[in-house]
């Protein structure tokens, strides 16, 4: 698998298709490996290089990390196949190399058994993504800024992760905690808090958790990054954050109360902000990127519940929350990749990343996105029995059980965060309907515009359709086959979980056979995604049969009612647009969005009863407050570095050499003293 990814990343300069082909092979191998490990429960370890007695560079495949490998490989497989059709002469050959290299570094990150190789993978992943973002289309200056912002956030994240890992090192004395069993970090008091808080910031930065959510949406949206790259960045790169954070949390073993509160509150706020900003985003990449923030917030909420439950020794609830987090990571990664790829394809054809843009595109091209797009947005808006619903249901169920927490403060926080999360899950529906409506299916054009160019596009759309359906079946599968995913997640956590959660929570109930009902606690709610699906299909059979078979009740189609006037043409200025769709939200939540509405009357005189033509110019802006804060910070940092550059850098060369020599000697001295 490694080899195939390495070859893939090297060969990219020569041939894109071969490069992606190796990516596909690697992903398939990864899926097979991950499934084998997950189902058998055996771990593999490869020591690469023993540094000291206790530390070594090693790779390992345990059930825990193979679960994340499985998710990622599903996404990578789809992305690589998609890229073969997507990555055309618009982008240079480097893109394929960078893409596969990013995948390779992610594999390193997931499979590394020690913090050093983890950080190596983490860094190379950040740098490769940085170059991928630079491949975006549009204003070069904006893209450069976006890419450097991504790099800056990535480096800050690395710094915090290093701080966290150094804390772990000082508590256990080696780097290899990732490969060791859970609760391996026997830290306590301030040191453990240090480890958790730095990990929370470090990985939270990658996941785009508020108030660091800029790191997620801005690079993707401002750079118009290639769609395959965006899918990779938004679904698997943030997944690495989830992996790292859960890893540190489960290895801590002992928990403080306020960790749970912080994680819950940050998660809740991220979910709400993410869904709100997704709803007012007009960018085909910005909208899914904001939705990623929402979903990662939900994962944070689940982890927070796990911490609180563990603190109160509610083992079953804690285990369920952790499984919910893992489940949500799975369903979100798959759905989000699918959304990016479908919307990306349509906007590539449309040649615009603006949802508001109504460039005519052929109906046949749009049709490739109809069903896959529909199922994707339904999953992301948590509609049963799809992937997103099962995991969101699980997360909300854990919050419903916040009454089990031992003190009133935790109960109140749990309840409030539960309400916020449910609100976010509701608001995201606005964003998703908008994405589907304006990004995929509407406005619909007839195929009378078929030029030679669009014909080739139609051919390519048909060939790319398959990969959308691959995601569609995954989304359906993760939802309907919920017990299987539950089993995989609980298997992957077998080292960590305190209870036999699969045996106790996946049962049968009310005539539904064993292994088909998921309970959220004992005694608490229960739900069977599989049988919900069966039930929904059964319900659909009757109306479908009537509409298809019954002669008398055939569907009658008629024209829409346009207030008694003629139907506006597809290019008319009377068409509703995506901006207007979410303007009520912009106006209602003015305090949050800092909406600026500017209506300027340019010309025109109003005299008694006589009017001369009037001209207006309208400008509405929505502001992310955090962006403003970061902009201010950037301004100060820039002026500081300018000051430093002007005062320190032009110093004498001799002095500089002496400084370097002195520093070197000190380092040598320090190392020898330690030995």
């Amino acid at each position, binding site marked *: 698998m490694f080899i195939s990814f390495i070859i893939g990343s090297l060969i990219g300069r020569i041939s894109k298709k071969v490069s992606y082909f190796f990516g596909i092979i690697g992903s398939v191998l990864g899926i097979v490996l991950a499934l084998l490990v997950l189902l058998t429960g055996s771990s593999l370890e490869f020591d690469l290089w023993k540094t000291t007695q206790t530390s070594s560079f090693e790779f390992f495949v345990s059930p825990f990390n193979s679960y994340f490998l499985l998710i990622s490989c599903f996404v990578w497989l789809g992305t690589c196949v998609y890229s073969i059709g997507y990555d055309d002469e618009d982008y240079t050959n480097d893109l394929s190399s960078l893409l596969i290299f990013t995948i390779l570094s992610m594999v390193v990150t997931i499979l590394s058994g020690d913090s050093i190789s983890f950080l190596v993978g983490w860094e190379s992943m950040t740098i490769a993504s940085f170059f991928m973002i630079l491949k975006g289309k549009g204003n070069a200056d904006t893209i450069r800024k976006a890419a450097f912002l991504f790099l800056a956030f990535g480096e800050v994240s690395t710094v915090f992760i290093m701080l966290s890992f150094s804390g772990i090192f000082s508590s256990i004395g080696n780097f290899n905690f990732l490969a060791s069993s859970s609760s391996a970090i026997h830290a306590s008091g301030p040191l453990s808090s240090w480890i958790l808080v730095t990990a929370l910031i470090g990985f939270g930065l990658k996941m785009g958790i508020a108030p660091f959510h800029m790191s997620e949406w801005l690079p993707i949206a401002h750079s118009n990054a290639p769609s395959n790259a965006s899918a990779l960045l938004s679904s698997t790169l943030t997944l690495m954050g989830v992996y790292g954070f859960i890893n540190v949390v489960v290895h801590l073993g002992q928990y403080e109360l306020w960790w749970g509160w912080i994680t819950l509150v940050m998660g809740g706020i991220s979910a709400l902000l993410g869904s709100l900003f997704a709803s007012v985003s007009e960018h085909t990449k910005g909208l899914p990127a904001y939705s990623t923030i929402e979903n990662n917030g939900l994962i944070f909420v689940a982890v927070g519940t796990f911490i609180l439950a563990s603190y109160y020794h509610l083992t079953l609830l804690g285990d369920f929350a952790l499984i919910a987090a893992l489940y949500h990571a799975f369903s979100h990664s798959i759905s989000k990749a699918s959304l990016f790829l479908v919307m990306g394809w349509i906007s590539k054809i449309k040649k615009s990343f603006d949802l508001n843009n109504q460039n005519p595109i052929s109906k046949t091209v749009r049709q490739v996105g109809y069903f896959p797009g529909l199922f994707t947005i339904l999953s992301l808006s948590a509609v049963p029995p799809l992937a997103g619903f099962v995991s969101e249901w699980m997360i909300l169920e854990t919050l419903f059980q916040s009454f089990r927490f031992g003190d009133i403060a935790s109960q109140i926080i749990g309840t409030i965060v539960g309400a916020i999360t449910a609100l976010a899950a509701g608001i995201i529906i606005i964003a998703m309907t908008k994405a589907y409506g304006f990004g995929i299916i509407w406005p619909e054009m007839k195929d009378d515009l078929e030029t030679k160019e669009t014909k080739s596009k139609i051919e390519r759309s048909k060939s790319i359709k398959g990969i959308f359906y691959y995601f569609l079946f995954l989304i359906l599968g993760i939802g309907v086959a919920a017990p299987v995913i539950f089993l995989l997640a609980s298997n992957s956590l077998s080292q960590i979980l305190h209870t036999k959660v699969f045996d106790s929570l996946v049962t049968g109930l009310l005539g539904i056979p064993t292994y088909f009902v998921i309970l959220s606690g004992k005694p608490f709610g229960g739900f069977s995604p599989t049988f919900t699906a069966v039930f929904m299909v059964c319900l659909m059979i009757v109306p479908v049969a009537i509409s298809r078979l019954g002669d008398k009740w055939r569907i009658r189609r008629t024209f829409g009612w346009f207030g008694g006037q003629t139907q506006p043409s597809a290019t008319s200025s009377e068409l509703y647009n995506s901006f207007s769709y979410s303007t009520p939200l912009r106006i209602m939540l003015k305090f949050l969005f800092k909406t600026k509405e500017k209506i300027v009357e340019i010309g025109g005189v109003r005299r008694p009863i006589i009017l001369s033509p009037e*001209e207006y110019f309208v400008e509405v802006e929505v502001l992310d407050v955090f962006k403003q804060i970061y902009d201010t910070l950037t301004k100060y940092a820039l002026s500081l570095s300018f000051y430093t550059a002007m005062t320190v850098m032009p110093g004498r060369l001799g002095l500089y050499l002496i400084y370097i020599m002195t520093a070197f000697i000190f380092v040598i001295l320090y190392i020898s003293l330690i030995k």
Partner: protein
Amino acid sequence: MIPKFVEQRQIEEINGTIQISSIFEINGKSLAILTDIENSKTILSDMPLSLGEHVSLLLKEQTNIGVQTDLDIGSKVEGYGVFIFPYGPVSSGIPEAGGFKLITYGERIVKLIPQINFKKRGIERRVIGMKPEDALLLVERSAGNFSSSYSTCFITAVENILGLEIASSAKWIRAVAIELERIYNHLHVFGRLGEAASQNVATAQVNALKERVLRINAKYYGHRYLFGFNKIGGVNYGPFTTDERKGLVSAIKVIAKEFSNIVAFFLSSRIFLDRLQETAKLPKQDALNLGAVGPSARGSGIDMDDRLMYPIEPYNDIFIGIETDKEGDTMARTMVRIQEIASSTVILEQLLDRMPSDNINKPQLSSSNSSSSLPCNSDKDFSFCRIESPSGDLIHVVQLDAITGRIKFLHIRPPSLVNWLPLSKSLEGNVFTDFQFAFESFGLSYADSDR
């Protein structure tokens, strides 16, 4: 021949508080009826030259039947996400056939373009060649809600051309009808506003009061909407006996009292007030410039009322309190209407109390020096009249054929027509949900403006 409240002089420049009320073309000459609001004067002038090449919307809208008119001359709105939201002509919310083009970027109204003349029946052309008494049937039915204002306005102009000096009591009976019409129209508007705010119980009570006024109309004037009580040279109903007059006054007083109780409930409802206050604000200057009339103008602090500015009998003889409110929002317009119900009750009381008792249906040819006669040009072939209808200033210009006595020219300047632009202006910057309240508070009628 021109009474003291009408001046006939040439106006060159339109400025200050002079408002163009109507423009019409008669005998191959463009004439304008202007209103000097400050001095409470009506001015009949040749077409002011300063209007230049500007197209008057009043002329523009005189289209053929079946051609709708956008009350707008090529406005342009640019910006991200701006689109035109077509509303009407057949939709819920707008009670008649009429439409709007809302230029918006979602929710916020940037500009509102009223579309009228869906209901155009061409009354003005249709009556040409008819006998005045036949034309009356059409004219008073062209806007059912304002029928007594329409018939009185038309008949007064015709009578003036014919030189008929009709009995004072007939004029007073017409005034009673106009005030009754005002009361039920204001009740109607208030009911619509309550409905828009979903105050269903209170709205039903207001509508019940309106129904009682309509029944009073039917009892005293033979028709719920006051059709057919007027005739040239007099009226078909009345004079009322003393008991009848007392009964009418007390019935209206009871209605006004009950209404003030309901209003007290409305004004204590925060939900209702929130929807009305600060909604669709029309500043005084805009109201002046755009030529707002009636309660809409009075809601913006403009002190204009035809009953004072053009005081035909009996309005020159009784006390009239004009209600104004300077806020200019929907609430102000509503308050003006509420207070006008009370003031109309007082006017009705005076009218019925002091009604002269001359022979009601015996018109005489007027003596040439009568000060109360209406304006006529020197050839005595056309005349105009202004009546304060429930929605404001209504103007009829009538010309009769000197030989046959049939209608040669009719120009109607309905109050709703000039109030569209103030409505459009007031709604700029408001949100969609304010639309209903603004629309109802102006008391506009498509039948009226389209005629």
